[in-house]
């Protein structure tokens, strides 16, 4: 599509959900209530690791006001040693995460749930449930979990023939690393750690579920996928999917953390037992204790380069905490970290480590920021060792179209070189730092991006306007982008297009809002639907004019006769055709359902300037620029918003965010007060440079932009702090006590 002639694509239109959100009308999951509704609360394990020998719920059931109690026995049974894959999840783990089965595997693990006429009674009843625990030794940290004497969380999981907490291994290999390192003039090898960090969505998990007497089930909840909610609820309750209608509420942030559920199947069980609609709302503390952060990690990265800056070999070993159930994002860590570079010899290995903390959930480019942290910090040291500009050295080694990535695919149309060149040419990079204890860091990042299943329906109303329904919860402005595309294709005003998110009964299957896939995939089905609608409109006009449909063109929102008929009939607008729909053949509308392919990865380059208060150890972000190949920016403001949001989260990850555990294996900072995400005043205006290299395999050139901007952040900040102080940091977060301790240790060393 030619930019100059675009009327809506690339425009900063007002988001359709904006007014409701700023006036407080938007309906989030906890805003829903129903006649006869009751409340449910969850009893959580007080132990980080314990066998559950028995659960006696009789006293709770006897408490006046209690309507139903649920334990794992109420779920459909999934044997622990048989995989039940559902997307990237495994239902045997999901079941055990929602209600502990054989063991409680972390402090805060749900063990039972009670529904009662008030939330207070439900909470009171939880205290009356007697659980017979056999307390087991526990491990929350990787080193403790993989120590030879560690207590395995699962009896059936083995690694190298022995019971182990290493639940999986992934290896990506290319070339011969021994030979590669032998060619190197400089080899740097470092070990790093990162801490688990939470997605930090503002809206806690919440749902209302109503199971009617005939089994028809309605679920209101906020998630990153109503079809995922339906499927998981069906799996665990045995209710057929056709009987479950999952209605997506407005979502108050997800960042990957709402690609799984915690409450809906439990509420469905309680509703079925009690015959009442059941509402569940987590507290922030429950969110912090028992919903997914992303993994903490330990890793070793080794990179070899020649004096001229050519990287000849790279090796990475990444251990990621999965939490209580297998499934940490080792694919993102081991798969993405070396991918930006055309390195001939690579060995990248990931280990999935289970331990006694909450099960991890997806978090924006899961695993990739962790791997990038190690690789991009070592690259910085390599550049320093050979005396090259860190960005120039990276540019010399980057992947291009045709480069085979270490995890397999060959890049086809990437804008990585353009991204780094834009960074090099930026005012930011050209402006030198002058202050004492100021430093600059750069880093790159890459994320796969995804396609997958999407459905859409485009209907023309009788008054000639347009309603578009898609199946993806909108967490980043996708409704506005879809409206831009539809208005552009139909040649009508943006305000005439309404975009809705359908529920599972009103729109076809649509996969999760995740993997930076939503606009990529839904634009494809919306485009196909809209093109079908345009065909119908041409046919209707042809019928009215009595000419062949092939002689009608659709332009600027109007049907116009062409060829020999040019000028023979007055053009007909969408409104006119809409009004005549019934006479010309019935309602006008079309749908499309596809398993979309052709997603192309996204690259980001970040430049970060910091200043360190060396006495207090605080880091001030002076300036930050995020440069990213965004494909075609359908709605630039929301693309920039995605970039800025990713940067803010990366800065938080680098500087202050971390889970702190006490000596009893409990999270010690389960609140936004002590779990320190950045606040507004912590950040300067975050600059963005959108590099638009359209994806040729997409009708509008969309690439996916939501995840790549988090990937380089922790490394860029760490490189900047290291540059400011002349001290390399290997462990996140760079909290004030850690920085002061490093400065003091460095001074002591210098004095000796």
């Amino acid at each position, binding site marked *: 599509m030619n930019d100059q002639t675009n009327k809506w694509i690339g425009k900063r239109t007002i988001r359709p959900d904006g007014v409701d959100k700023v006036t407080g009308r938007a309906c989030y999951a906890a805003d829903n209530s129903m006649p006869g509704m009751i409340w449910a609360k969850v009893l959580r394990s007080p132990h980080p690791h314990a066998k559950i020998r028995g659960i006696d719920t009789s006293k709770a059931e006897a408490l006046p006001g209690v309507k139903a109690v649920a334990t794992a026995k109420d779920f459909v049974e999934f044997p622990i040693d048989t995989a039940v894959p559902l997307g990237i999840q495994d239902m045997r783990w999901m079941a055990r995460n929602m209600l502990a089965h054989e063991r409680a595997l972390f402090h805060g693990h749900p063990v039972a749930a009670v529904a009662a006429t008030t939330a207070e009674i439900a909470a009171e009843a939880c205290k009356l449930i007697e659980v017979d625990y056999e307390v087991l030794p526990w491990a929350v940290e990787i080193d403790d979990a993989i120590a030879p004497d560690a207590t395995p969380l699962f009896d059936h999981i083995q690694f190298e023939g022995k019971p182990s907490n290493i639940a999986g291994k992934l290896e990506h290999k290319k070339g011969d690393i021994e030979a590669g390192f032998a060619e190197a003039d400089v080899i740097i090898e470092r070990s790093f750690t990162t801490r688990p960090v939470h997605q930090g969505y503002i809206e806690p998990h919440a749902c209302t579920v109503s199971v009617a007497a005939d089994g028809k089930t309605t679920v209101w909840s906020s998630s990153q996928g109503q079809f995922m909610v339906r499927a998981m609820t069906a799996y665990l309750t045995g209710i057929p999917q056709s009987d479950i209608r999952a209605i997506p509420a407005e979502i108050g942030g997800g960042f990957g953390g709402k690609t799984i559920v915690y409450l809906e199947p439990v509420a469905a069980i309680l509703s079925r037992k009690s015959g009442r609609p059941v509402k569940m709302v987590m507290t922030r503390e429950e969110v912090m204790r028992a919903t997914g952060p992303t993994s903490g990690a330990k890793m070793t990265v080794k990179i070899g380069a020649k004096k001229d800056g050519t990287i000849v070999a790279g090796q990475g070993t990444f251990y990621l905490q999965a939490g209580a159930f297998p499934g940490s994002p080792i694919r993102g860590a081991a798969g993405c970290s070396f991918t930006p570079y055309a390195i001939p010899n690579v060995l990248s290995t990931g280990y999935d480590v289970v331990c006694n903390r909450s099960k991890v959930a997806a978090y924006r480019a899961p695993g990739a920021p962790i791997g990038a942290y190690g690789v991009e910090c070592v690259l910085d040291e390599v550049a320093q060792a050979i005396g090259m500009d860190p960005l120039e050295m990276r540019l010399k080694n980057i992947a291009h179209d045709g480069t085979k990535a270490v995890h397999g695919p060959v890049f086809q149309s990437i804008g990585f070189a353009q991204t780094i060149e834009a960074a090099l040419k930026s005012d930011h990079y050209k402006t030198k730092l002058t202050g004492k204890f100021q430093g600059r860091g750069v880093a790159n990042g890459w994320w796969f991006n995804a396609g997958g299943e999407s459905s859409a329906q485009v209907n023309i109303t009788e008054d000639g306007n347009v309603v578009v329904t898609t199946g993806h919860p909108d967490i980043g402005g996708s409704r506005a982008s879809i409206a831009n595309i539809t208005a552009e294709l139909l040649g009508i005003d943006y305000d005439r297009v309404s975009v809705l998110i359908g529920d599972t009964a009103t729109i076809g299957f649509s996969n999760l809002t995740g993997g930076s896939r939503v606009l990529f995939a839904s634009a494809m089905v919306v485009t196909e639907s809209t093109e079908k609608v345009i065909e119908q409109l041409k046919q209707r006009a042809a019928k009215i004019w009595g000419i062949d449909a092939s002689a009608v063109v659709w332009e600027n929102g109007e049907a116009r006769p062409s060829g020999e008929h040019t000028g023979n009939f007055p053009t007909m607008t969408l409104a006119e055709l809409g009004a005549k729909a019934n006479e010309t053949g019935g309602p006008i509308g079309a749908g499309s359902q596809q398993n979309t392919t052709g997603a192309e990865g996204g690259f980001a380059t970040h430049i970060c300037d910091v200043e360190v208060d060396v006495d*207090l150890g*605080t880091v001030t972000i002076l300036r930050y620029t995020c440069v990213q190949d965004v494909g075609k920016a359908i709605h630039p403001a929301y693309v920039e918003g995605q970039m800025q949001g990713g940067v803010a989260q990366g800065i938080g990850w680098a500087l202050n965010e971390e889970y702190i555990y006490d000596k009893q294996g409990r999270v010690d900072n389960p609140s936004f007060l002590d779990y320190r995400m950045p606040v507004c*005043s912590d950040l300067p205006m975050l600059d963005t440079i959108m590099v638009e290299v359209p994806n040729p395999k997409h009708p509008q050139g969309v690439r996916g932009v939501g995840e790549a901007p988090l990937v380089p952040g922790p490394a860029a900040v760490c490189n900047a702090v290291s540059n400011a102080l002349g001290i390399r940091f290997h462990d996140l977060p760079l909290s*004030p*006590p850690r920085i002061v301790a490093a400065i003091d240790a460095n001074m002591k060393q210098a004095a000796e």
Partner: protein
Amino acid sequence: MTDMRYLAPQTLDEAVGAYAAAAGAARILAGGTDLLVQMRSGMVKPGLIVDIKKIAEMTAVEQTADGGFRVGAAVSGAALAEHPTFGQVWPGVLEGFNLIGSTQVQGRASMGGNLCNGSPAADSVPALVAAGAVVTVQGPDGRRELKVEDVPAGPGKTNLKPGEILVSFTLPPRPKGSGDAYLRMIPRTEMDIAVVGVGVSLTLENGVCTAARVGLGAVAPTVLLVEDAAKALIGSKLDDAALDAAAAACSAACRPIDDKRGTIAYRTKVAGVLLKRTAAIAAERAKGN
């Protein structure tokens, strides 16, 4: 499911009467920015709430005859910030108080609540200690006065007797050449709890420090009055040696814990760093007065 009563008396006598009669099951409500949070999290479950904001004396700010100030225990941060002269005379006390929370919290939070909540990290307290402020409390046995530093007894505890309500803070008149300041260390720039907080009040005559008080927060079970730090400053021209000595005294006074908010080593070091920075601001202000 236990019932909770709410009272908003107009007079202090009524408030003391109801509060004392409830014998421990009652809680005083000023701004509620600590109390309501604690109630929601299930930490406290009062049977009676006595709201003191309807009592005139508790929400008044007056200049006393000798030039000092009396500030009602329930005066909000926003209200004190709007007072025409308080912030000129006690900028350090005001900045400590105004650091609490956000705009929304400032509309409610009080110094009385901040002090009686008993947090060692309470932001208004170090500057009040440095100011030499005295509180008036009223209980079933009448009124008495206490120094601010004598009010907290430990985290979440005070030395108020059963039934006693904190009524007001009295700040002394200021000699010429006086200034005060408060600084806290937090990992973020706002919405955080002090890892260390330092209040300094001092008086300069011809460049020589003639009086000084130092309050130190978040490094011990209660906010501390650090007399050794004051001694190091008094008589000096606030030269490097004096500041180093005062900083060392602050570090020495620390009895911190290692916790999620900071390590012992870090807190101890930062107490000294902040003393120097706070004293410099207080001195700058003193020169202007």
